[in-house]
């Protein structure tokens, strides 16, 4: 609970710095503030409880994911200073919006009441609409913002309708009451319909096939730092929330009571396999790196949705996969930010000969892509290993076979980028690198490798 209040306070403070003319110091101060909030989150980890009439529930799940979100936001804020160099007067707005977005994200994983869940998801989405369209003189950014806004508010409407039907069936928004009532045998048909609508809305936010069509366009058109936010922070938030919703509202047992469990499992299997396959196959033919990583994100969403198949014991797994994926994403996008800083497109040709111009950045991008592809010593490999293992134990061999085939396909497009960096000649001289790019990229990759060496540090957190 203190995490959420502290984050909101920090956001307000960022806006105040604008008035006090502290613009130069805003990034370091915000990072220090976020580190303090991280400390608060760790201190709450072993003190679960519910607050404000069960509006906010602090559990191990919520604190662990909140800590991950805060770490990701620290990286994003650190990159912001350089990215918004041309908009120095607006930097406090951009950072404040990012911090408020983080508040929405934390509210989404620590909700104890569907009202809190809805407010969280809206705070997160509205901040993102602004960030996606924030380069207002660029037509592509406008278009990305508009598309994201239309799809986002459409999805919010569906989620709201789902919440409404659940309220109609249960007479309460409280998660505990709903989960108790959902076990009773006689439920109005509204309850499963409401859950389905809510799941569909969340799948829109996750960008899982068949609700993925907005993602590549929005990722490509948004400013690169916003794309980083979407593909790391927001994707992880949406999946964690979907997982929590299905787990906490006792959806699985209540569907079992109504003989709908088999259908639900089949749908999840189809969505995971379709997300992985469509994402990877479409990524193969992309020439724009941001678009490629958008499709790669869709396939990773498919991998993460596999945790829904063994929902009773896969929370630690999901946290580990999400951490591995998002840290690799941060590292990869940092290099993209560096390479495409003064260019108007993000084609793979821009990466030609990066290993000669800047070997360190090339190595970081290679490491990040290898982690996403699932090559050993990086966390991505162990995340997939544990995930596949658990899914086989739950009895879904077909999904795991499809996932392994997809991992092999994904190597194809990740190596396209790596080969461009190492085998082609550079087009132009190297640009000067800011220290912060190195710092963020290297810290993210190191964290990823450390997690790969000590997977149990995260896997066993949620028991």
């Amino acid at each position: 609970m203190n995490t959420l209040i502290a984050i909101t306070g920090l956001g307000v403070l960022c806006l105040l710095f604008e008035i006090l003319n502290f613009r130069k110091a805003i990034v370091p101060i915000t990072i220090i503030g976020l580190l303090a909030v991280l400390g608060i989150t760790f201190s709450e980890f072993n003190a679960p409880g519910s607050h404000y009439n069960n509006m906010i529930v602090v559990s191990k799940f919520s604190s662990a994911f909140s800590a991950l979100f805060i770490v990701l936001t620290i990286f994003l804020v650190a990159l912001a200073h350089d990215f918004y160099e041309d908009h120095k007067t607006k930097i406090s707005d951009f950072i404040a919006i990012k911090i408020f977005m983080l508040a929405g994200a934390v509210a989404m994983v620590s909700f104890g009441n569907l009202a809190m869940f809805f407010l969280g998801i809206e705070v997160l989405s509205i901040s993102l609409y602004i960030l996606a369209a924030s380069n207002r003189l660029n037509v592509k950014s406008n278009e990305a913002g508009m598309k994201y806004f239309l799809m986002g508010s459409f999805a919010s409407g569906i989620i709201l309708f789902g919440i409404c039907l659940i309220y109609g069936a249960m007479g309460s928004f409280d998660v505990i009451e709903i989960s108790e009532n959902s076990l009773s045998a006689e439920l109005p048909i509204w309850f499963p319909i409401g859950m389905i609508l809510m799941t569909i809305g969340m799948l829109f936010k996750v960008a899982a096939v068949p609700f993925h069509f907005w993602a590549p366009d929005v990722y490509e058109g948004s400013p690169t730092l916003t794309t980083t936010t979407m593909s790391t922070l927001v994707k992880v938030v949406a999946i964690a929330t979907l997982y929590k919703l299905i787990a906490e509202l006792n959806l699985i047992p209540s569907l079992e009571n109504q003989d709908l469990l088999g259908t639900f499992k089949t749908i999840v299997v189809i969505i995971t396999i379709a997300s992985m396959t469509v994402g990877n196959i479409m990524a193969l033919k992309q020439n724009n790196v941001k678009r490629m990583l958008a499709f790669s994100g869709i396939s990773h969403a498919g991998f993460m949705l596999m945790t829904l198949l063994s929902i009773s014991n896969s929370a630690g797994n999901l946290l580990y996969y999400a951490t591995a994926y998002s840290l690799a994403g941060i590292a990869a996008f940092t290099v993209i930010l560096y390479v495409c800083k003064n260019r108007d497109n993000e084609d793979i040709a821009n990466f030609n000969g990066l290993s000669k111009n800047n070997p360190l950045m090339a190595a970081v991008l290679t490491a990040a892509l290898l982690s996403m592809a699932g090559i050993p010593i990086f966390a991505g490999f162990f995340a997939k290993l544990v995930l596949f293992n658990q899914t086989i134990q739950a009895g879904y061999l077909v999904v795991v076979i499809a996932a392994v085939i997809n991992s092999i396909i994904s190597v194809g497009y990740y190596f396209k980028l790596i080969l461009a960096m190492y085998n082609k000649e550079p087009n132009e001289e190297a640009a000067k690198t800011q220290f912060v790019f190195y710092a963020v990229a290297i810290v993210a990759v190191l964290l990823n490798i450390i997690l790969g060496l000590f997977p149990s540090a995260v896997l066993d957190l949620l028991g």
Partner: protein
Amino acid sequence: MNNILNQIGIENYIFLSVILFCIGVFGVLYRRNAIIVFMSIEIMLNAVNLLFVAFSTYHQDAQGQIFVFFSMAVAAAEVAVGLAILVSIFRNLGTIDVGNLKNLKG
């Protein structure tokens, strides 16, 4: 109030809301004018608000009506951001036709 609800029946409220919601959905999917798309989104949200109030009376419970305030506030914020994006599109392209947004493809 509850008396009226009993006479009309909660099902009819649900049908009405579903119809309004579907009108909104089809508006979003088929209309090309951005303002009308925004209006359709508002219809979707307001259809849900109507159902919230109906359920609130049905359960004799005030929570549903409180939720309507949240969802109205959120809808207002959402549309404010949406209109701001629309203004910047109009300045750049001189049109608010959603069909003209085709720079991003691949």
